[in-house]
């Protein structure tokens, strides 16, 4: 079982949605809790069982009340767990924290959350083990961490306990003092934040807060403050840079108490791990920013140690300190020093690449004492970053891609600022030289990563320096050479042309590049041209043909020379793909502004294709173009092709086949995806059952009980017998009013399974769905392998009145457990006697067998009338005993393919007993939740 749990828990955490579609959240949760209470399970398994509650509490506890109940259960497990199972108790605390926070129980101060808070505070104060072995120390550490998380998620929760927490922090001498310090600082920060929100709060209130003797009046305020602080402002960092504002508490210069607390915290911060030091420093930065009465100089004695550190988080916290206090704590020399330090760290040999990149990011968002721009998140160079300083960060061919590009970007910014004269010019020359060396590496056939890096570097260079013609022209030349030697880079070239055109709208570099590429392609000798090269050339030429400014004569000459039968074997080969690529170029030429001058050569090319291309479809297509070209006026031609161009042009990233062929007809030939679901399947109301067993009293089954069982069993020799369930659904519009989809035709529904419990389903056709008509009924026939609840994914293809074909996804269909129930499948002429004897026969078998069979008892409180209604409403079709026989109802659910659940329902003194017998124990959890549901309604 233990191994099984490991597997199931890992399946759950890999894909919770998939896992829960095979069972229900309630059932799984119930299983987890049951196993947690089971004494036979080992603690290592139990720890595993807690992980779904820690990671996905809201998936398992669908409502706050379930969360509350679950928490109470876990607390009782905690109370019963022996103190020596420290690890398990730690995990229990974590799970409780997760459940209570995520289900909002803490926010609403539920009973469980208040109890839990007490438990945590008790553990945090319990230092009884200090003179023994310290074995409970990990539990105390976790309790503090849970308290900190509770306070972080519900700020102000512990404000009233500030003095207590301060005392704990000061007394603790073991390593645990760190946990108390972190907790105390956070509570202090939140409490002061809340004070800033109170009107009229001042020095007195602050003093009271720290002393713990909060006045009653303020306590009342506090409560209201808690309730009203719904907004997330208190959760977020208060250090936001030059544009951020910090709420302040006006105390006057007298805040001795706070100052002394802060000094002690700062002095002891050295004893914390660097990560906790950084957090503490940040929290204290926020506190001092909120209380102007405390001067930022309080941090000064710690600055040198922090600025010299090799720890990234400590230096980062120091930068945030600078961001908060600028020149009230840092002189301009300090500023120059910090910037130099960042440059050094950005290229320091002993640091990891991610750290170095992070420091470079810090340079581009440097918190200057006197910023010029408002720091709206864009990258800006700090004024003090001179070219001389930045030269330490020039990119080199030995850098990894990310570093290379980050450096290339930063240096480009630096040299752009300097202009082309002097240092800027030299720097620019260096960058270009660097780009050239990357290019020559690409030329030498480097790996894919370097190719991508080169094109990104080229884009960056052009983005900043496109206007410097001596470089941009030379780059064009080098790129053309590169293309001829490496035509497989065509998609990269097209991408570069596209992006430079989009981003540098005022520059004509992109057109220049395409023009140059057209020249090299059309002028290169055809003799060595492979079909791969040709295919890439045609792609390039199609892109070139999109540019109205580029003269297309040479393209046409090229096309005609590659398809002239005398000079090339392309036509006789009749390659379908190449044919399409040629047609694609032609299509762009058909809408080219200079079409008038292209008319004759283009017509010739199309004619050649019509007559000589050895592929029928290409011929047909060429004929269509030829006809369009020769019969339509330019305006009409443009009109016909315009729509296709918009969708099939370069904006369209997915070059579907139909785009290549369909041209103006694209939209009618392709299947389009709807943005949201258009219709869905809902369960149809049950039809009144015609004749049930009761009306057939006169007929009878086999005489003896054993004979009935045998006859009943015999039926299953046909494997298709009673193996299917049929569910009725209505296909209805989803109520978003999109008149476009009011009338839908030829709907074909496709279903796919989410688990292995059912056989695959066939497609279902529905002729039409009209909004004004009654909805269509769809019968879904499911063939279970195992009769468990499931979900089905559904999608559909349909036609809208304008002739377009659409693909849409429907909301998932959930098949509930009770939908898999069938009445006992006995021949229709059997009377009650026969079915009753099958019931008794099965019951006896289940009682005597072990194997897969199982018995169970479900009890609940129900009045007699309520029970009758329940039977009437839910059990009638499955009732075996006489409905008037109210002492004991016998109910039998048959679940295809072979499972039975038998119920004997009787009212006892204290409760209604549902005696359950089944030949498939795995169904017990499902029937249990089903009964729970119907009896609690």
């Amino acid at each position, binding site marked *: 079982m233990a191994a099984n749990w490991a597997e199931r828990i890992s399946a759950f*955490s890999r*894909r919770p949605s998939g896992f829960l579609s095979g069972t229900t959240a309630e059932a799984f949760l119930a299983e987890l809790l049951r196993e947690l209470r089971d004494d036979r399970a080992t603690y290592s398994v139990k720890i595993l069982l807690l992980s779904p509650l*820690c*990671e*996905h509490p809201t998936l398992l506890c669908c409502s706050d009340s379930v969360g509350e109940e679950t928490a109470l259960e876990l607390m009782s497990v905690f109370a019963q767990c022996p103190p020596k199972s420290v*690890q398990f108790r730690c*995990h229990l605390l974590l799970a409780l924290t*997760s459940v209570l926070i*995520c289900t909002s129980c803490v926010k609403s101060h539920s009973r469980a959350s208040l109890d839990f808070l007490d438990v945590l505070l008790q553990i945090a104060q319990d230092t009884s083990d200090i*003179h023994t072995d310290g074995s409970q120390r*990990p539990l105390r550490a976790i309790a503090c961490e849970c308290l900190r*998380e509770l306070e*972080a*998620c519900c700020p102000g929760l512990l404000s009233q306990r500030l003095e207590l927490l301060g005392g704990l922090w000061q007394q603790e*001498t073991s*390593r645990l003092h*760190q946990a108390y310090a972190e907790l105390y600082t956070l509570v202090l920060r939140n409490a002061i934040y809340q004070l800033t929100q109170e009107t009229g709060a001042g020095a007195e209130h602050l003093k009271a807060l720290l002393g713990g003797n909060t006045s009653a009046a303020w306590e009342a305020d506090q409560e209201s403050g808690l309730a009203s602080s719904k907004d*997330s402002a208190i*959760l*977020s960092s208060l250090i936001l840079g030059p544009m951020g504002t910090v709420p302040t508490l006006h105390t006057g210069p007298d805040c001795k108490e706070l100052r002394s607390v802060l000094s002690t915290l700062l002095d002891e911060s050295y*004893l*914390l*791990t*660097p*990560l906790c030091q950084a957090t503490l420093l*940040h929290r204290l930065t926020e506190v001092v920013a909120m209380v102007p009465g405390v001067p930022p100089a309080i941090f000064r004695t710690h600055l040198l*140690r922090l600025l*010299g*550190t*090799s720890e*990234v988080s400590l230096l980062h916290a120091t930068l*945030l300190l600078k*961001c908060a206090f600028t020149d009230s704590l840092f002189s301009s020399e300090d500023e120059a020093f910090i910037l130099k330090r960042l*440059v*050094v760290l950005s290229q*320091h*040999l*002993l640091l990891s690449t*991610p*750290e170095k990149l*992070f420091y470079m*990011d810090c340079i581009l968002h*440097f918190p200057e004492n006197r910023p010029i721009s408002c720091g709206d*998140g864009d990258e800006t160079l700090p004024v003090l970053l001179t070219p001389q300083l930045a*030269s330490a960060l*020039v990119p*080199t*061919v*030995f850098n990894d891609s990310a570093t290379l590009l980050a450096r290339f970007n930063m240096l480009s910014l630096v040299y752009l600022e300097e202009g082309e004269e002097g240092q800027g010019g030299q720097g620019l020359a260096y960058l270009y030289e*660097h780009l050239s060396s990357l290019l020559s590496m690409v030329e*030498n*056939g480097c790996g894919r990563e370097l190719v*991508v890096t080169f094109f990104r570097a*080229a884009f960056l260079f052009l983005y900043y320096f496109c206007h410097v013609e001596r470089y941009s022209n030379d780059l064009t030349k080098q790129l053309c050479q590169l293309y001829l030697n490496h035509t497989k880079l065509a*998609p*990269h070239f097209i*991408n*570069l042309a596209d*992006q430079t055109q989009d*981003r540098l709208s005022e520059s004509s570099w992109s057109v220049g590049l395409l023009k140059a590429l057209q020249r090299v392609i059309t002028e290169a000798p055809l003799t060595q041209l492979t079909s791969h090269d040709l295919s890439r050339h045609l792609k390039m030429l199609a892109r070139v043909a999109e540019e109205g400014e580029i003269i297309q004569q040479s393209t046409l000459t090229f096309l005609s020379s590659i398809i002239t039968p005398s000079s090339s074997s392309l036509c006789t080969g009749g390659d379908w793909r190449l044919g399409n690529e040629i047609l694609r170029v032609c299509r762009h030429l058909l809408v080219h502004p200079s079409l008038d001058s292209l008319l004759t050569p283009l017509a010739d090319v199309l004619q050649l294709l019509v007559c000589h291309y050895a592929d029928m479809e290409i011929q047909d297509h060429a004929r269509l173009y030829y006809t369009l070209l020769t019969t339509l006026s330019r305006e009409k031609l443009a009109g016909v092709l315009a729509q296709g161009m918009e969708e099939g042009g370069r904006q369209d990233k997915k070059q579907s086949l139909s785009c290549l062929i369909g041209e103006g007809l694209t939209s009618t030939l392709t299947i389009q995806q709807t943005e949201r679901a258009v219709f869905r399947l809902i369960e149809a109301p049950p039809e009144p059952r015609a004749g049930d067993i009761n009306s057939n009293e006169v007929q009878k089954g086999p005489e003896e009980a054993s004979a009935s069982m045998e006859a009943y069993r015999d039926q299953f020799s046909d494997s298709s017998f009673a193996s299917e369930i049929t569910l009725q659904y209505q296909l209805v519009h989803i109520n978003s009013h999109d008149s476009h989809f009011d009338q839908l035709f030829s709907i074909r529904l496709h279903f796919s399974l989410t688990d292995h419990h059912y056989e695959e389903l066939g497609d279902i056709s529905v002729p039409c769905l009209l909004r004004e008509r009654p909805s269509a009924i769809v019968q879904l026939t499911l063939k279970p392998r195992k009769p468990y609840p499931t979900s089905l994914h559904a999608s559909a293809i349909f036609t809208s009145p304008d002739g377009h074909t659409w693909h849409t996804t429907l909301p998932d269909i959930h098949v509930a457990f009770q939908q898999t129930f069938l009445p006992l499948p006995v021949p229709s002429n059997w009377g009650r006697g026969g079915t009753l004897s099958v019931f008794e026969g099965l019951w006896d078998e289940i009682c005597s067998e072990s194997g897969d069979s199982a018995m169970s008892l479900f009890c609940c409180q129900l009045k007699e009338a309520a029970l009758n209604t329940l039977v009437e409403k839910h059990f009638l079709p499955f009732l075996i005993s006489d409905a008037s026989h109210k002492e004991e109802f016998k109910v039998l659910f048959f679940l295809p393919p072979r499972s039975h659940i038998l119920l004997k329902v009787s009212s006892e003194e204290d409760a209604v007993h549902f005696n359950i017998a089944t030949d498939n124990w795995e169904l017990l959890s499902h029937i249990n939740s089903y009964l729970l549901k119907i009896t609690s309604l």
Partner: protein
Amino acid sequence: MTVRGLWIISHENGGNLSIRFSRRFSTVEHRAKSLAGSSYVAVPEESTFLQLLLTELGLSDSGKNYVALRDDCLYRPRSPALELHVDGPAKGILWPVLTVSQGPLILACLPLVDVPPDPRPPLASLLSVSQGLTLLAGLQTFLLGSGSKPDSEGLGSRLAMVPSVLLQVCPLGTPLDVPLPGTPTAPTSVGTQKQPAWKTGLHRGRAVVNVGLIETVRSMQYGNRSRQDLWDVYGTVTCKCEVEGVLPNVTVTLSLPPNGSPLQDILVHPCVTSLDSSILTASSVDNYDGSAFSGPYKFPFSPPLEPFRLCSYTSEVPVPPILGSYQLKEEENQLRVSVTLKLHESIKNSFEFCNAHLPFFNRDQMGVVDMKVSSGQLDVSKEKNLLVWVLGQKFPKSREVTMEGKINFSGPTPGPSDPLCTKLTAYVKLHFKVPDMTLSGCYVDQHSVQVYSSAKPRIVTSRELQSKEYYIWNSTGTAPVSSGQMMM
């Protein structure tokens, strides 16, 4: 200052990448939801996350030449913080996903954005980013060891320990510490002095302080008037202190010879208690100021139990320890090779080892190798694409060695290729180690190590010089530009 989730991904044997461990912190996710409001993007399920991450790292569809999503030139991977473009009903951009990778491992985490999400805040405003990086780096060291060569042998067993490690260092998404090498020993402090949280226990027994100073020299030599040769030196001081007490004081002092150039870019371990401002002033990106402070450099600290890097520095030295020249000439079917190496007179002529490697790329395997060396011995590698010149422990009295001769590339199969080293672009790479010396002259005097404790400690100091990335480029070919410092 928290992370929403953590993922550990590794290459399996077939090269497939899979998620070996993941952890979501539900309470942090709860905060993320209320902080981000309408722009909240949920963390997708494992398989989706993996696929999006690999696309972003350029590792997806490795068989395809060009994939628009992966290879767009507009996109600059702003590593270390990636964006994942989540599709489907919970559409949006998941940011900032931090990643670090080494050897067979990729580690990722998603820090909480605790400032207003629109417009996107700079990374520098999120403290959780640097903390996330520290956590990832710590986990990486825990899983692979800190050596240069990742130890993937025990990876499986260490992965199994990750849940219990996280219980200590990051139970609820707030990183508290990095995984420590040993398990905490039983705490023994019951005094009034607080025990540092980074100290896992107390030392009992004889006091021993071990201070090791290693300097590393890198060089790019071009043998070309138009291109200035480059070299740099950096040093690290590693300590292992076994000293009694909760918070014992130790001071280590670095000293320079009388006219030594100042130590620059000093970075210190967080256990250093205080620093003098003069120690931090010298920087390698500054103009050299003759009046700069040049020691002694005092580092007072209270040591952790395990070995740690007390500080690191860089230094500007006037000459490289070994000056080389490398010339290749293409002659019909063979290559004429000439190498000269000169050991500078200030360097102690006593190596632990000294080897020169001459790799040849983009050529066939070597056939006839007709070479003469004035000292040491010459080996041809098994793959026949590399010459190894073993110089041994000493240069000859003249402090100069040469290698002359011809190589014929007539082997039956082509050797390895390299995009950089084509035609005459080639290098000699030196590997050497000199015990008991530093280039900067920096040293730790045994008597300058002060330990304030009752028992007299045993103090051991050592120093050594080693090479790393020490290249001598062929002066007749085009050498790649390695650094821009020469241009200004």
